[in-house]
């Protein structure tokens, strides 16, 4: 980590987005993670995505659990409220926060220990409830903060200083598909070109968006045999597609060769332009997506890209039929039935 803060002085020509914010307005505190940590690249991708989408920073709520990855919300969007909760329980805190105010953008930032080990239950249940959120798992297969123990996504047969992992790894992408996530993607912290548009699409998605991002741990799990290492992912990255995220106000100017590009309109009117790398891959077909993932994973490939998308996603507020006004803005006028009704209630108990 560095301890030298960037100078406050800004170049007068620094680019601004439509709101007049610069890239710097989306940054947070200085990262305390190790130099070369994949997580810092993901933070940087998130900053870029929010800047490019021109999101008002205070309209975002960042939530996390415990671990290296869960520290990162502090290192981005310094003008957003953040909540570093307890280990493995971010999904429930995020669910409650979302219930209280449906108007904010919720980012859950977690790791493989936080999501797949201690928090697997909460991960599963928040996905099946359809919480409108971007859930990022910064996946390195190892416990960093406690120095190198295996997590539940660690490869079978991977070695630490003292042990060999004999447990099967949990695949969060496969789980998310089974559990009913409406946006499922995998990416790599070292591939910002793929990651930033995926994040933008996930933010625009009005349902449970799960992104599993392979994010190498340079200290404890970056050996070439590890499927969570820079080297391995670079060599075995099987990207099924590329996204160009197009905002509502932009026009689609270019015509593409038929069959190579699909455009998908999301609920908020934003348009995803999906360039197919593997022409056979259809992100709307869940069963085939699962078969494809199984097949490629068995061959040692890391499948990345937008793996599944349900265009007409629903979220928990639709399921619970909650009012449009955020619940945290309702006061006694809207909530308290008053004394006359209570008198009638008393009569029912006589």
């Amino acid at each position, binding site marked *: 980590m560095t301890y030298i803060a960037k100078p406050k002085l800004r170049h007068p020509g620094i680019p601004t987005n439509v709101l007049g914010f610069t890239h710097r307005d989306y940054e947070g505190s200085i990262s305390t993670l190790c130099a070369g940590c994949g997580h810092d690249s993901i933070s940087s991708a998130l900053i870029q995505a929010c800047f490019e989408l021109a999101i008002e920073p*205070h309209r975002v709520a960042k939530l996390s659990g415990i671990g290296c990855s869960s520290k990162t919300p502090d290192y981005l969007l310094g003008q957003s409220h953040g909540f570093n909760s307890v280990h493995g*329980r971010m999904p429930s805190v995020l669910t409650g926060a979302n219930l209280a105010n449906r108007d904010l953008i919720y980012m859950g930032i977690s790791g493989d220990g936080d999501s797949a080990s201690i928090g697997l239950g909460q991960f599963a249940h928040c996905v099946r409830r359809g919480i409108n959120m971007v859930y990022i798992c910064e996946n390195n297969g190892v416990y960093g903060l406690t120095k190198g123990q295996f997590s539940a996504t660690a490869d079978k047969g991977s070695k630490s200083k003292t042990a060999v992992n004999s447990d099967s790894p949990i695949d969060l992408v496969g789980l998310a598909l089974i559990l009913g996530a409406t946006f499922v993607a995998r990416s790599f912290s070292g591939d910002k070109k793929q990651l930033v548009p995926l994040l933008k699409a996930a933010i625009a998605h009005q349902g449970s968006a799960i992104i599993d991002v392979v994010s190498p741990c340079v200290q404890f799990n970056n050996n070439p045999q590890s499927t969570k290492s820079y080297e391995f992912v670079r060599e075995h990255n099987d990207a099924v597609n590329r996204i160009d995220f197009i905002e509502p106000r932009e026009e689609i100017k270019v015509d593409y060769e038929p069959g190579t590009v699909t455009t998908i309109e999301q609920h908020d009117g934003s348009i995803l332009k999906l360039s197919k790398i593997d022409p056979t891959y259809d992100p709307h077909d869940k069963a085939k997506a699962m078969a494809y993932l199984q097949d490629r994973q068995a061959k040692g490939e890391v499948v990345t890209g937008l793996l599944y998308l349900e265009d007409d996603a629903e979220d928990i507020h639709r399921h619970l039929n909650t009012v449009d006004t955020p619940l945290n803005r309702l*006061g006694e006028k809207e*909530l*308290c039935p008053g004394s006359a009704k209570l008198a009638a209630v*008393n009569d029912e108990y*006589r």
Partner: protein
Amino acid sequence: MPSPISATNDFVVKFANVNGSGSASANELFAKCILRSGVPVASRNIFPSNIQGLPTWYEVRVSGANWLGRRGGVDLMVAMNPQTWDKDVASIDPGGYLLHDSTKPLPPSKFREDVNEIPVPLTEICNRTYSDPRQRQLFKNVMYVGALASLIDIAPEVVEAAIAAQFEGKEKLIAPNVKAFRLGYDHAAEHLAGACGLKVVKSDIVGDRIFIGGNDAAALGCVYGGATVAAWYPITPSTSLAEAFGAHCKKFRVDAATGKNKFAIVQAEDEIAAIGMVIGAGWNGARAFTATSGPGISLMQEFFGLAYFAEIPAVVFDIQRGGPSTGMPTRTQQSDVLIAAYASHGDTKHVLLFPKDPHESFEFAAEAFDLAERLQTPIFVMMDLDIGMNDWLCEPLTWDDTRTYDRGKIMTAEELEAGKTFGRYLDVDGDAIPYRTLPGTHPTKGSYFTRGTSRDRFAKYSEEGAVYVDNMQRLLRKIETAKTLVPKPVRRDAKEPARFGAIYYGSTSVAMDEALAALETGGLHLDTLRVRAFPFAEEVVDFIQQHEQVFVVEQNRDAQLQKLIVNECAIDPARFISILHYDGTPITARFITEAIAERMTLQRKEAAE
């Protein structure tokens, strides 16, 4: 042979049934009929952790003198369960009555000479009247209510009106139930005239009081108190609170114009997730609660520490049951006092409220949301199975329409814009409660990072000893502020100056009222203090210091409230005498009276020697 008990508006009827046999609604009907005669009742359901086939009891205490606790003893047993027959018969007071199904003769050894038999051939009448096996079973229950009504002089019109009220909305069921009731009533009128010396005489003692369960009342308190988010996990005896909240919300919280809900209820995957959701919602400015019992409190510990340290409002209803572990899941206790007061690892301290009955459960529920937002910390409403799941006769619920919600110290966008200093953990006005901002308030000001790790007054991460200590000391001072905000204890002084005092709380209160009257009649005077909250107000310390000896009456084994007082108020433990009742049944007036009388008399004798 003692003479048959003769009593008017003052006796105990106990029903021994098999659960799942449909007896509960018939037994409730009986209690309602007495209430509709204007005579107070206290009813208690004693049930197993089971759905069908195990013994269950329902006790109705009829008390024209308004004693609403359990008295102890049984004057009339309605013995409908062969499994528990022997114990049930043995529990009847000498001179009492035994109403039973006399269809099949039982050997004389099954009866007691000092108990008066009231035989009713229930099965025979049922089999004669009904062909459907389910009806034969169900209507047997209403039939014994009919026989009882005749025996104790409840007018048939009262019962018929009560049946009509019970089946409101299911009108088809009224006529068959009235018919079954009549069969029992007529049989007893014809064959059993004068068989029972227990009588109900119509009066107007009930007044405008209501008959309601604590969970139901607390759920109403949540609606009135402005709760919008509820997250819970099913656990006896708290489940009915969450379910009642849903029912009341459907009635009162659906927006008329849009048909949309001004509430969100989530049945979580476990208690950990439930409290996580409550804390997430509280952090984001909604009034949120969970309802649980001991095992849930155990699971939520880590989150309680987070909410305490990160200062997030949350309301937790703990409907206490018999512990430890699964313990006695359908029996009552007050045994979570210590775990709630100091919930979570590290140095913590939480605010507890102890309502005495459903009426106070309603009030404290609504107040808990104000306290949680004012103090920015979890508030535990410490109820128990006895209050939560039994219907109690209590004062009607009231609401002051001028009352507004206290949302606590929330800094607004305007205040931030005007340049007001915002430090999330900065005590600006001496009450140790800092201001908070809600997510999404202002584009450039007032954001902060909430965490369970140590931080400075401006929410910046810090592991510096002095910074940590500064924060921990402020949290202690916040508890001092809490002392001034929580409900005050209720003191009641004896007619004569008293050397002895007694402290009690929660569901013990009704039995205590009666015990005090009995002790006074016996010439034993003591002052009492009903504790209604933790942290303890100054009045608690004063009360103890003004008495040589103080009884602490509790429904747990380890004298948990007493230990909390000793610990928090630095008082010599020798000053206290514990009166403890923890067999899972609600404490009785007889138990308290005997225990206190024995100790007081002993002390008097010692003093005389």
